[in-house]
């Protein structure tokens, strides 16, 4: 009888220990998840700022200015354009 009780006791202790372990593990994972979510939010913010930056750099006014002034580009006149008809097979 006493032996049986001893076995039960050890099972109970093992269960208790693993419960504690599992809880600890869960917490660790949760902290990890939280960190990643925080990183996600930070990246989201950064993405927004990058979008803003991109649309500022690629603004049509800026592109036109650089094209015309620095690269000396021009809209071609009617005489400089040849339009091709699609070839019917």
């Amino acid at each position: 009888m006493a032996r049986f009780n001893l076995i039960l006791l050890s099972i109970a202790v093992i269960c208790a220990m693993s419960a504690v372990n599992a809880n600890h593990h869960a917490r660790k994972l949760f902290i990890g998840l939280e960190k990643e979510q925080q990183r996600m939010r930070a990246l989201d913010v950064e993405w927004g700022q990058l979008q803003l930056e991109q649309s500022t750099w690629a603004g049509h006014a800026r592109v036109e200015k650089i094209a015309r002034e620095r690269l000396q580009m021009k809209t071609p006149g009617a005489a400089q354009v040849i339009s091709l008809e699609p070839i019917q097979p």
Partner: protein
Amino acid sequence: MKFSQSPVLKHELAPWRARLVLVLLLGGMVSLVGRSLYLQAINNEFLIGKGESRYARVLELPATRGRIMDRNGDVLAISTPVKSVWAIPEDAKLQPAQARDLAKLLDMDGRELNRKLAEDKDFVFVKRQVSPEIADRVMGMKLPGIHLQNEYRRYYPAGEVPAHVLGFTGVNDAGQEGIELAYNQQLSGQSGSRRVIKDRRGNIVEDVENIKTPIEGKDVLLSLDAKIQYLAFSSLKQAITENRAKAGGVVVLDAKTGEILALANLPTYNPNNRTNLIGAQLRNRAFTDTFEPGSTMKPFTAALALDKGKYRFDTLINTAPGKLTIGPATISDSHMHGMLTVAQVIQKSSNVGAAKMALSLAPEDMWHMFDNLGFGTPLKMGFPGEASGRLRPYKTWKPIEQATMSYGHGISVTLIQLAHAYLTMARDGDLVPLTLTKMDGPVTGDKNIFNAQTAHEVRAMLEMVVQPGGTAPRAQIPGYRVAGKTGTAHKIEGGVYANKYIASFVGFAPASDPRLIVAVMVDEPSAGKYYGGDVAAPVFAQIMAGALRTLGVAQDAPMRPINLGSEADQVKESM
């Protein structure tokens, strides 16, 4: 002496004393067990709550306002987090040198800072919406009583170009004008909150409960095309400068879907920096300002006359001697034209011809046409201050008024209404509602206003307008067939026609299968030229040519330099 031999033990004590002590100890134990049972098991919420309050925190979960994008996904408005610096004045006792540094860092006046910090409040904003880098440096100064708060700030990367369409938000992130106001419900999110348990390092270790999940604002995908919008804006700006005009507006529509591809107004403002704004800059003229359209109304009169079978494409109308007297008033043309076909009346923009056509029509029919085209009723697109224009009930019309309305006087419209009405010409006679959000494909209209045959014929007449001999040869575009109509009207000031003009041009291309409608209005050109064909038509051609190229619309005419004809060929428009 041993304890067992102590004489004190010899005394016989009453047994109740021992029992009393036992009972008291037992009672004490029972009450302790009972109390702990009560606290731990029965009424445990109080302690749990107290415990949680030591390490549980409520976190604000802010929701971001949705972005506004053009039809190609280019961002037109976006919110990013910024910091606001606030202070508890009582705690914020700064050394003069510290205050100076802070004021310099925040780019504000030192006296203003001191005034704010001297206020008798618990909370004052020192400066709202500063960039994160500056906020970090403010915190780096470690000043007492100065704190930061997270906020969102709206940025408009395209600046003044689409300003009137987008509108802007106030400092509390609520829409105040334009799309920001019209779609505020969709754009604004709802911030949420959650209760969590934090460990001593500040890590979140457990969710106690999810109180409120934040609802992120939804993005709005506009029908606007940022490229065409820029093109429209810069062309208009150039024209306004060249003609020393007071104001102007441009609308570009997709004739297949009723989408607004561009809408520009001048003067405008920069939504990112809204200090020193005046009312004139804020006005979305295309929606809020009505004007007498002038000759741009003539095609509708002609279309109705054709539709009712009163006239044919080639019916001759005698416009000699260039004057027509109705009752006490006289209508006149700027040139004597003699016998003109209906098509030529449109081409040469003869008031007398248009008036004669109008007088053959029933006032009721004309009113119904104008009403069906949307004149006199606001478009209801959700913009603040949208004007309805003026269309008086036909029962009060006198013949002279009916005649002048045929060429766009005595009726007032907004530019967007005018562009909308031209959809019927570009679309075989049916009308579709305008939209500012992106559509998936062509839309079929349910409102048939003119016969398809009539629309085709009027289109052909409008093509003649831009040929040499018409009023607007400058509206031609190499490689495309163009159709359109000029308008030049006196402005009304204090109830009388003043010597100030509004030049306009509405047209579409390619004329063989219209894809785009462009309407241009220039208010008070004062550099000598004021006819629609001279002032507004070149703007139209510039925008239309660029927009057609941007959209890759197939050409329907040979690519050759445009023929303006001789100066004498261009017909001066009647007003």
